[in-house]
């Protein structure tokens, strides 16, 4: 799960002119910092750096062989099955992102802007909308697999009950629908998060602004279009970045719905599943080298896009203020 993080924060404030009057001396500083630094370095930072280094070596099983430069990266683009899996998986991740973006900036934005001014049942609605987001993506994936089952799945039963029986189909069993189901379920589960964040941002917009526009005769849509929406830019930006990171990292939900091979026939494959298969299921002698190269590329791609996005939003924010 990804959290709302520092992305939307203003740059760290300028160091205050106070002289080095820290409340703590150096010995205390070191003692207080050491546990967190050591745990983070040993279990996160060093493994990440090591993962980068793994991708530049030729591996025989778990034995590190010779330095091989960018050979492993080359393999990803030239050798099967990577050559055909990689673009397809990336495409699926991007579709997950697009689906979530469309859903959260229409339905999600509408719900948030209807909800934030309400007094009655506001808490109840917030709770109901956020519930799917809190449930494990794995549980959500298995749940929908059962609900959509062609045998006695409630979804097909419901379609039959309301006279749309001809629409009933093996949703996850055929390549033409499986990916779209996963895109929709992902967007459905994720929606609680944008609703909450947009709601928080809307709550921060001074009421005088919209009231003044209202007195000047602006319609509700005009008020939304020219006052609320511009002021939401940074919230929408933040949510978009987090949506991007979440979609690129998607693993549990596709794993639950399509297994580690992205069945049927790779129709639901995503990058993380590809990484998982390459590292743990391929049995290839150079599994570590190639999977680490894939991980490195994903690192760079996700982090790079997130950073670029962030700096664009910051520039926009500065222009607005």
């Amino acid at each position: 799960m990804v959290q709302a993080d520092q992305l939307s924060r203003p740059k760290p404030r300028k160091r205050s002119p106070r002289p080095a009057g820290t409340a703590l001396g150096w010995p205390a500083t070191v003692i207080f910092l050491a546990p967190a630094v050591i745990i983070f370095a040993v279990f996160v930072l060093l493994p990440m750096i090591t993962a980068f280094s793994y991708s530049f070596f030729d591996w025989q099983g778990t034995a590190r062989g010779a330095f091989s430069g960018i050979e492993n990266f080359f393999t990803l683009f030239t050798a099967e099955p990577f050559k055909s899996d990689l673009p397809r998986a990336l495409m699926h991740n991007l579709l997950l992102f697009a689906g979530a973006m469309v859903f959260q900036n229409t339905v999600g934005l509408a719900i948030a802007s209807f909800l934030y001014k309400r007094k009655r049942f506001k808490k109840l609605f917030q709770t109901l909308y956020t519930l799917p987001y809190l449930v494990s993506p794995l549980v959500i994936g298995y749940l929908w697999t059962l609900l959509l089952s062609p045998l006695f799945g409630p979804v097909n039963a419901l379609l039959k009950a309301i006279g749309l029986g001809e629409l009933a189909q093996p949703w996850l069993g055929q390549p033409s629908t499986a990916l779209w189901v996963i895109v929709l379920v992902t967007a459905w589960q994720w929606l609680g998060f944008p609703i909450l964040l947009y709601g928080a941002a809307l709550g921060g917009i001074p009421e005088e602004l919209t009231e003044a526009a209202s007195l000047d005769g602006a319609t509700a849509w005009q008020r939304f279009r020219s006052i609320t929406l511009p002021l939401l830019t940074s919230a929408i930006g933040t949510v978009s970045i987090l949506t991007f990171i979440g979609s690129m990292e998607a693993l549990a939900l596709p794993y639950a719905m399509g297994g580690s091979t992205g069945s049927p026939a790779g129709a639901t494959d995503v990058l993380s599943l590809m990484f998982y298969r390459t590292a743990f299921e391929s049995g290839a002698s150079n599994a570590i080298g190639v999977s680490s190269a894939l991980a490195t590329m994903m690192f760079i791609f996700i982090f790079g896009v997130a950073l670029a996005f962030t700096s664009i939003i910051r520039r926009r924010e500065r222009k607005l203020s």
Partner: protein
Amino acid sequence: MSLLTEKKPAAGVPVPQSKRPGPARRKGAAGRFAVSGFLWVYAVIAVAPLLVMVVSSLRTTREMARNPLALPLNPNFASYSKAWVEASFGTFFVNSLLVTVGSVLISTIVSLMAAYVLARSKSRVTGIIEAVFLSGLMLPVYLAILPVFYLLDSMGLVDNKFGLIMVYAALSIPFSVFVLTSFFRQLPLELEEAARIDGAGSFTMFWHIMLPLVKPAIATVVVFRFVPIWNDFFYPLILMRSKENYTLPVGLTTFFGEYQTDWPTLFAGLVIATIPLVVLFLVATKQIVAGLTAGMSK
């Protein structure tokens, strides 16, 4: 006459003479009605699948095959005892609880200490350390799973709950440090200066003066880190080998292979994995919302 008609307008008949409840206001009422309707419809869409999950766990396979949509008129809890005992969900549940509580506890303690220093110190070195912690918020850190595996292997911590606890604790540090540091920064320095004059040492100051003040932020961090750790399946899938060490999510993955046709038990397993989060959410909505929107407020 006119008085009477004004007092009792027949339902649905427009009253053109009266000015107050004019078309604009009626349109407003209709609009509000449409908005409420929309909110309720989406609430149903959001929650119905979860309700079906609970309802189905209380039925029997035969009932479900006959009619997938009916309600459990005589609720049957056999699926729960089957999932809990036969499918070892009891063990998985205890493991999940242990791992989640342990890692959240460790990460919160070390993050509190670090955050206090980061918030108060002005040196360049601590600035860099803070930036490194925060970069962990944006990186897909689980891709470092192979080195993590070999690291734990070298320490004899593969297939060991303590190893998993340490990994999760480390992964929780970026978010916890981020939230706690910004909270510590808002606290006035005067308190510490006064305590210092009274001769308090760094540790006394941290423990007796600062900690009580950051309680709300601690609650946010604890509650909000609980959720992703409870839900994670990737690390235990790779790091745990024996079934007695599985957490709930990774238990689910094997369970779905084994109990394919036993639908109520499958649903019961999903409910067991979900209930603690729902309970947590209901008692700590405030903290969860605060965690989700951390960084959004000014």
